[in-house]
């Protein structure tokens, strides 16, 4: 293998990202999910910083710092506060049982790897082989959103999906322009806060954070 050590570390972090995505799929407790999400953010920030260092793309440093501030510190802290105030940290059974979810996850990973293979052959970046992993993490986060019925895991799934997309951008084209990244980060931050307020509203209306109740909404 002719890859330099920095790239090997990026590959390792990519694998960690996927590992954490799988751990999230199998996690029943919401607090555990938030912790895993923070770790995923950490792995993402580390890999972004290493790509920045090895390719000399300075704007990636800013996005790495942004990731640490938002996804490792601010959002997990906010989620932990929400969990405490909503008092929702219990084991929740997902809608499909976990072994089945994991099996579907494996199929998704194979699908993503196959899909990414021709794309990554065309990409000119040194990190192109991690594109498949990025796509797989996006799909796994999507799967998590589908299989969870509670509100907070769905939002965490959404954020994990954003992590995957971010990683895809880094690996396919050394990240988006800084303006776009800042915009996305701001959007996500605002989105999370708005959803946090929504949680309270949802619970007030239905006495539960289970989004299945929303299916029965009707206009009178």
């Amino acid at each position, binding site marked *: 293998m002719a890859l330099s050590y920095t790239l090997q570390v990026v590959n390792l972090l990519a694998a960690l990202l996927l590992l954490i995505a799988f751990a999230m799929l199998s996690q029943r407790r919401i607090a555990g999910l938030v912790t895993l999400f923070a770790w995923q953010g950490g792995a993402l920030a580390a890999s972004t910083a290493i790509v920045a260092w090895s390719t000399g793309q300075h704007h990636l440093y800013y996005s790495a710092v942004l990731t640490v501030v938002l996804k490792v510190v601010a959002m997990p802290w906010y989620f932990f506060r929400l969990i405490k105030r909503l008092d929702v940290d219990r084991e929740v059974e997902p809608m499909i049982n976990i072994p089945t979810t*994991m099996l579907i996850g494996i199929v998704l990973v194979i699908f993503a*790897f196959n899909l990414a293979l021709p794309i990554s052959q065309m990409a000119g970046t040194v990190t192109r082989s991690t594109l498949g992993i990025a796509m797989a993490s996006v799909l796994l986060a999507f799967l998590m959103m589908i299989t969870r019925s509670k509100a907070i895991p769905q939002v965490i799934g959404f954020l994990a999906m954003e992590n995957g997309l971010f990683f895809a951008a880094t690996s396919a084209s050394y990240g988006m322009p800084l303006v776009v990244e800042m915009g996305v980060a701001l959007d996500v931050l605002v989105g999370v806060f708005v959803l946090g307020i929504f949680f309270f509203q949802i619970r007030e209306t239905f006495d539960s954070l289970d989004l299945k109740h929303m299916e029965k909404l009707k206009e009178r």
Partner: protein
Amino acid sequence: MTTGILLQVLQTLLAILLAPLLMGWVNQCRAWLQGRSAPPITQPYRVIRKLFHKDAVIAHDASPLFRFAPYMIFACMALAAGIVPTIVNDLPFSPAADVIALVGIFALARVFLALAAMDIGTSFGTLGARREMLISFLAEPALLMVFFTASLISQSTELPVIVETLAHKQFVIYPSLAFAAVAFWMVSTAENARIPVDNPTTHLELTMIHEAMILEYSARHLALIEWAVALKLFVYSALGIALFLPWGIAQAGDLAALPLAVLALLGKLLAGGAGLAFLETISAKMRLFRAPEFLGTAFLLAVLGMLTHFILEV
């Protein structure tokens, strides 16, 4: 050739003699982490010595299989300890150190233990044997997948070749081994009857798996089984070291590296034992019917490791 045989004998004896010490170290770390006063590190040796001095009590209905099983189990584990490279690579027995054969040796020991447990006809023995079979038929494919991930990297299922590739060729980070390592930890907790799958210190009928199988054993038979359990933990630790932290294992015929290899092994076992105790302390024993899910996860992670190998390392 003579040095080879000598080294082989030395490595096997070292494993057999060190195994209870590792067990004692893990127990000591666990006691510290749980805020209890720890038993001395030599406690497993004392237990084994005490058991060897006692008279064996054997049920009237026991068949010869019941008496024979402890020797068989101990022999299997001693063989496994002999062929896994712990301090020196490429010894006379090394051609036998095929990972698939190794899984077979573990399976042989397990079959004898389960048969002996059912032999007496007590309900606990049968219960334990069935639970053990449930756990192990799920753990075995996961273990094989972990081995295959390492085999894909080194293009061989022989442990010495795997160690040679990982430790003595050019240093490369293999992301697929990260998956394999997590899966291996999950499998080894199940195979060694540790928390979260089984609690080695419990005698509660609702939860015990391994203990239920050996309830009828006493004296020298029990001593051999306890020793074999310690050996199994040692072999799994050695396997983990060989697959994921092989640096320090001496190359074939490199006698000067031997003292360093022994020191490296001791250091890694100390760290590994403490790590195991830590992981056991922070996790809770799970319900028996969660175990299939746990081991299924291990299997899928190992498969994921293989997939990652193809996408990132080829």
